[in-house]
């Protein structure tokens, strides 16, 4: 069954590559746990940058969270922001360099807990940036504590008996809130658990990036993701849990889309 490398290479020469690691994604082994959605999100975001041909004009902002090392994988200029402050950092960049494409990549703890103020005001000001929001209903990096988006009855290391609404409040649907701000231009919720969802999520990221040219406001792409490690599940099982538990509460789909006239000069 084995083949030599040459044989394989030769064979592939005659075939068309239809799907490959984008050149905007560095050829480094990512530190994410097996099956973690961060990896897919990274890849499709970088594919979008590549497809738009904007690598030279793109500046990314990494959060504090499992994706803190995003700059080790994404082959664009990047800044590592303090926990929760990614959109403030992005605002600083974008206001000085309005012609650049600026995005943040943030977890639910980063964006919706400690960073709530920055998030709300960035969107309210309608900063022309893309916010990529990875909602895995948990604090991955620090070992599985409750996130604002943790589901009711979900067990985490700080809700060992399950989250209770009466005590810890309900999971925060921050994306729905943000969509209502006039500063929000394009807001959508996606996932990366199936091939078709990955395709859709990538389309959303493409839009989110290219709309920046219009200067019409903030684009926000939420990606409902998993954390097999801290959910205490195998990746396949985690994605099943995601479908059964997260998607009903965080339904996928667009929340705010630009009108035709908004984008006709895109």
């Amino acid at each position: 069954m084995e083949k030599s490398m040459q044989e394989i290479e030769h064979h592939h020469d005659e075939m068309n590559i239809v799907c490959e690691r984008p050149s905007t994604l560095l050829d480094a082994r990512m530190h994410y746990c097996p099956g973690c959605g961060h990896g897919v999100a990274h890849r499709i975001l970088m594919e979008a940058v590549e497809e738009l041909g904007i690598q030279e004009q793109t500046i990314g902002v990494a959060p504090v969270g499992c994706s803190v090392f995003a700059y080790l994988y994404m082959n664009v200029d990047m800044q590592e922001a303090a926990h929760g402050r990614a959109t403030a950092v992005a605002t600083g960049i974008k206001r000085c360099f309005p012609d650049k494409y600026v995005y943040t990549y943030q977890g639910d703890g980063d964006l919706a807990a400690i960073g709530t103020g920055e998030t709300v005001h960035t969107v309210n000001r309608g900063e022309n940036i893309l916010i990529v929001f990875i909602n895995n209903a948990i604090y991955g990096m620090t070992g599985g504590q409750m996130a604002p988006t943790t589901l009711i009855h979900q067990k985490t290391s700080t809700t060992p008996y399950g989250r209770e609404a009466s005590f810890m409040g309900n999971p925060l649907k921050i994306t729905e809130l943000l969509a209502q701000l006039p500063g929000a231009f394009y807001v959508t919720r996606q996932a990366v658990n199936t091939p078709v969802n990955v395709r859709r999520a990538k389309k959303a990221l493409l839009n989110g990036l290219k709309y920046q040219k219009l200067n019409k406001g903030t684009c926000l792409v939420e990606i409902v993701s998993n954390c097999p490690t801290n959910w205490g599940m195998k990746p396949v099982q985690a994605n099943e849990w995601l479908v059964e538990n997260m998607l009903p509460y965080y339904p996928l789909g667009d929340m705010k889309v630009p009108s035709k006239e908004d984008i006709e000069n895109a």
Partner: protein
Amino acid sequence: MLEEVIFAGFGGQGVLSMGQVLAYAGMIENREVCWMPSYGPEMRGGTANCIVTVSSEEISSPIIGRFDTVVALNQPSLDKFEHSVKPGGTLIYDSTNIIDPPKRTDIDVVPIPASEEAVKLKNTKIMNMIVLGAFLAKRNAVKIETVLEALRKVLPERHHHLIPLNEQALQRGGELAKSEMPVA
């Protein structure tokens, strides 16, 4: 008495917990004890080690540069800590996966084919207990019975059925340690 030992290996080999069991046993025997972990920079996987001190006196530093005993469960740990054994001290290692055996002659070198033995005991997770058994046989830091008592206290009730297996492993480790001839 004073025993300063480092347990070193990959994450997942049970390095940290063998240290904890030893510390717990020390406590039962009314010793002063200290268990100091050191995790590799990687969040998961990577190297792991812990320093355990068991002493009849107040323990000064939990961080130590030279050890009475080094227990190395893989090649990188062996390479890293071989030179840290005090002259006259003990170096115990899992010889199953070792390519480059230790070279020092001024110490008691104890190769234990622990992984191999664990396979024989039909439970690879028990490897660390075999090594711990060897350590107990060699160093007299605490009594093997105390370790078993510690295990009973540390393990949740639902895992108590594993205690006989652990005992077997400790015993086997002790036998292996005594049968091995010191290299020096």
